[in-house]
């Protein structure tokens, strides 16, 4: 019964697989970015597919699964480090049914399936978020943090605050599918 979320049809580019990408989002290095389908990139989001590993050839920098949402003003940037004197970027892999709230900055290494990240979060470099975890609004996750499956993290620095219900997977999946369905275009005049 949740109300539809309307967007102006001319603002979004819709792909064959149902991805919807705002023209007001900055997609750098699009050839290095994979969107799984029915994934929405909101206006003002910045996705840095251009920050790729040095070396020849084609490389996937950021991949997102199905039914994901990158909220307004989010920054998605691959993690980097200097290992044995060599500076390099490392790929970021995000699973299915992952929603990232508005104005969050994500530099994670991997994010599993059915993960919810709130608004105004910072997900530090090389963070690993396992399936069905949840990051509350305004949480700061320091670099290299591991977030176990079905756990709720919150605060600055983000800490484990509790377990999520056993049916989190179903609840999140229903939420992300429902959200995509409610995200509908209105014709411009």
């Amino acid at each position, binding site marked *: 019964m949740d109300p539809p979320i309307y967007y*102006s049809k001319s603002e979004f580019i819709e792909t064959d697989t149902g991805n919807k990408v*705002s023209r007001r989002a900055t997609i750098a290095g699009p050839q290095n970015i994979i969107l799984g389908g029915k994934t*929405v990139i909101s206006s003002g989001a910045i996705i840095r597919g251009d920050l790729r590993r040095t070396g020849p050839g084609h490389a996937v920098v950021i991949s997102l699964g199905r039914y994901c949402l990158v909220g*307004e003003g989010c920054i998605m940037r691959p993690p980097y480090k*200097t290992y044995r004197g060599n500076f390099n970027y490392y790929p970021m892999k995000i699973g299915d049914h992952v929603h990232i*709230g508005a104005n969050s900055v994500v530099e994670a290494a991997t994010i599993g399936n059915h993960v919810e990240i709130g608004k105004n979060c910072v997900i530090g*470099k090389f963070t690993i978020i396992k399936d069905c975890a949840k990051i509350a609004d305004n949480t700061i996750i320091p670099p290299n943090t*591991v977030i176990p499956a079905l*756990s709720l993290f919150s605060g600055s620095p983000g800490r484990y605050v509790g377990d999520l219900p*056993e049916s989190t997977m179903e609840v999140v999946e229903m939420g992300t599918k429902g959200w995509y369905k409610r995200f509908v275009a209105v014709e411009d005049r």
Partner: protein
Amino acid sequence: MPLTLQYHCSCLSSKPTPPPPHLPSSAYNFHPLHTLFFCEECDAVRCNHCVMVEVSGYYCPNCLFEVPSASVRAEKNRCARNCFLCPNCRNTLSVVPSDPPDTGDIRLSAIPVSAVGEPPFFLYCNHCRWDSAEVGITFEKPTGLAAQLQKFEDSAPESLEFERLKEHFEPFLRASSSSSPAHHPTASSHHVHTNPITAAASSAISRDVSGVAKYNPLARSRVGKDKSANKDEMPEYRSRVEIGSTSGLGGGGDVDVEFVKHLEDVSEVANLEQRWVNSWASSPRASDLKPLRIPLLSKKTKRCPTCRHILIKPEQKAQSVRYKIKLVAANYLPAIAVAVPQPSSTEVAKRSTVRSSGGGAEADKGPEGMLAGKTYPFHLSFTNPLYDPIQVRLSVQRAQYQASGEAPAPEKARRPPFAVSLPISAFPIAAFAEAWEYEDDEDMFGVEDDEMGDADVRSRDREGRSKTKTVGVLEKRANVTIVGGEVVIGKEAKGDVKFNMLVSYTYRSDDPGIDETEGTPSRTASKGPVMKTFSFYTVVDLGPIIPKEEPRPDPDL
């Protein structure tokens, strides 16, 4: 204010009706549907307050190592690998060599890369920049740090004292557990099992506290006798360390006084949160905080408290989110959502929400509140999780605002601040089918479902609908039925529009033989499956009432 609807769990209470919604205890009796379990054996809802919990596996939340339960005890429920928490901010610490990483860029070197440098090694927090060298903890090798730290922990005076206490009480505990009445068979047919955690907790709560008389309503006169019988069976305990000599270790005394006298900065004192995990007596100095080995987390098996059947059994692998057994209430009870239709037209809503497209500000907040003296419609949507259609009947729990047991006093008694109208007759919800999930066409199943309704019910339904359009079935699609209700807010009302609603649904049961109240077994057998009814309570919260004392009187009144 978000509108909520939560489900009741009686938690084995002898009184199956929930408390009135305006009492604070109401909050503990109601839960979101997706947190509840369902025991098929007992045909009852269970919640996290009443299920029996058993640990089915331990793991470290940082390295995700699955710790065998045999080593959990020796390692004191903490990770024995290289996983540590910052004592200052609780971030995970990194192991760093003494030589700084040789990048010219300071900004990049803030995050240590790997521990392959020069000894000594120390633990570093990349959030608050605490490091263990500051408190004099360094390591010659970057491995086996936990064992080295545990050696410190185990030799700390409070830890030694605790070991001594355990030794002292062990013979007594062993003796008392063997004679515990917990194993006695109970005559009652309503058998209640107690798990070890609950038993430990209840014995801790009911233990004798010196100087506080134990409340025992049945055997008041016997208390004195029992006491003398049980006391002083144990030898007197002699502590390892006299409390007077713990000055400086958190035992208070002159050392702490001197410390506080010469305090220059609050951050020199470790705050309560930082000291909370330590024993009661710990140094007040921030500079005495030690890195903490990370506490383990556990996966849990949950059982029905009445019949002990397993409701939740996780897969063995710590990071798996799948379950071998998962009996959740959402697979048995209809999911109910509540909404208050927005007064604004769709066109206005479109224009106002179109700018905030794509996440961020979702406009699903409820109204600010309901004005006293006005009438509001509301919607309840029911989603059927069963593969068979169901019939649902609703009623509002009455007499919530009367003092219990007393006849309602005329007029002066607490008048209900609002009155709720719900559809009187039963309404159908179509069966769940996997295909619905991908179905976008909403009109396919908008037809009347003739299978279950009887003529009488339907005619009454029509009457109701002609009288007022807001109360009754509003929409049917797939396995969802939306009904409308109405709430009339009293002129003098205040508080919240919150009421308990009883939901009864009738479903087809494949369970043969045992019939409900109607029909002989032979008759039901000839008719095929049995119809059964399940009832549960919910609490509906439509938000706060905006009282009459508004600056401007409402012109509608």
